[in-house]
């Protein structure tokens, strides 16, 4: 089943042509890794999928972008973002307690019953492997947690609204190897129920968790294939150069 169907997508921020004729299909329950040097357009691509690029005052797009066979621009934007969650590059807790961070999304969607909210908070924290570390201090500020804990909090917060797709934007760029391993473990378990798109600067991470890997360079999708294929026998020499660390 195809979740996202993207055809001939071009986007601009003012004069900058950030994505050039990108064609991608993203299937349900797969992990798609996106690699590429800085300014290659990988984050811009990710932010197309939940329309966060629309916040840019000079954003323009052309082409075709379907989510569940529906034009993404025709879907109510709040519904779209509820169905397509996002975890950002830096841990970004909201200035609220741990509990309220997780509960924020469902409360905004109108859930009022306190017991239901508590259930969701507990379930989400367990899914993100954070529950045992925070269950006794749910009412302290989320800023009191360590960086790795904060990032798992952000994953739990995204899970709490029960999305179908989770977008990870370099989720481990600020984390140590142990925290990174925990986040990757969570991602692999989540694959069963969610479609995951992972943007990463860490080529090895893409190799570890991605079913398929896409390589972006200067706004173009250079190559997209099964992860083993990309890392053993890439068909484009630029892909080969990047994963061998020759540039980027």
């Amino acid at each position, binding site marked *: 089943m195809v979740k996202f169907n993207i055809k001939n997508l071009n986007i601009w921020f003012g004069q900058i042509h950030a994505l050039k004729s990108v064609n991608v299909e993203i299937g349900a329950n797969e992990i798609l890794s996106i690699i590429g040097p800085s300014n290659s357009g990988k984050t811009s691509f990710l932010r197309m999928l*939940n329309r966060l690029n629309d916040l840019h005052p000079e954003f323009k797009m052309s082409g075709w972008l379907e989510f569940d066979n529906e034009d993404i621009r025709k879907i109510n934007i709040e519904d779209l973002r509820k169905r397509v969650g*996002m975890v950002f590059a830096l841990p970004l807790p909201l*200035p609220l307690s741990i509990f309220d961070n997780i509960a924020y999304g469902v409360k905004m969607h109108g859930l009022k019953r306190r017991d239901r909210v508590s259930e969701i908070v507990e379930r989400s924290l367990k899914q993100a492997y954070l529950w045992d570390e925070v269950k006794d201090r749910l009412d302290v500020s989320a800023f009191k947690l360590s960086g790795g804990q904060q990032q798992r909090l952000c994953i739990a917060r995204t899970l709490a609204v029960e999305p179908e797709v989770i977008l990870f934007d370099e989720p481990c760029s600020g984390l140590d190897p142990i925290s990174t391993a925990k986040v990757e473990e969570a991602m692999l378990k989540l694959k069963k129920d969610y479609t995951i798109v992972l943007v990463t600067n860490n080529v090895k991470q893409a190799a570890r968790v991605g079913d398929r890997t896409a390589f972006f360079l200067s706004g173009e999708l250079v190559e997209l294939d099964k992860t083993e294929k990309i890392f053993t026998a890439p068909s484009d020499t630029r892909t080969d150069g990047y994963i061998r660390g020759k540039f980027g």
Partner: protein
Amino acid sequence: MIMRNTQRTQKIAFFFLFLATLLIVIPVGMIVVIIFQKGIPAINWQFLSDIPRQGMRAGGIYPAIIGTLYLVLGAIIFALPIGLLAAIYLSEYAKDNLLNRIIKLAIVNLSGVPSVVYGLFGLALFVVFLKFGASILSGSLTLGIMILPIIITTSREALESVPQSFREVSLSLGASKWQTIRHIVLPNAIPGVLTGTILGLGRAAGETAPILFTVAAFYLPQLPKSIFDQAMALPYHLYVISTQVPNVDEKVRYGTALVLLTLVLFMNLVAIIIRYNFRKKKKW
């Protein structure tokens, strides 16, 4: 030789820089010292709680204190909601187009208008045209318009200092733009908004010109009963007893000045405390 010259030039430069800085402190210090020195003897319970007697040469300044508090309260009721809503629009919704640039330019210019012009404007619009008469309502509205630019500018700064990433996180969870403003942006901007409001009120409390034609009474034997009554006010009362009434004891004048100064300094102090507490608690 060159080295020593450089050293000496530097020392001379520092000396003059320091002198210039010191010159700022001296007048402020002297104002406070003189007002306190000459005003303190007048301050007692009767001075603060009695109406003026013997043609304002004796008695107290209670009606003027109350009048100023009413005016400040009226100005905040009018200016805070409008100023805050305008700031939210400008910082969160306004696109960069001609109309919004004109609005921003108007706000900048509004803050540069001399206060006596506000007074005349209030007289024409509220007192005469809208027939509110010389009243607390007219005076409060005039003072409110005068402090609007302060409130809008500081509120905008407070709203814009809330990190963009918080907005993105909230939106990415499916919250609407308004929910994001209401639950994430506003709560974190409130201390800044309050600081600006109090600074604006301090200004409103001390101004004479805007209330001159719109509310201030020369002398009233009783307190105002409704917002359509005239009221006495501290700055105007000070002007009256300093220039219009002969043979007023010096300590009464300085006592009045002291009460006004203390009121304004107190408001500024509250603003500083709010800002300090917020900075300490700030989590990002």
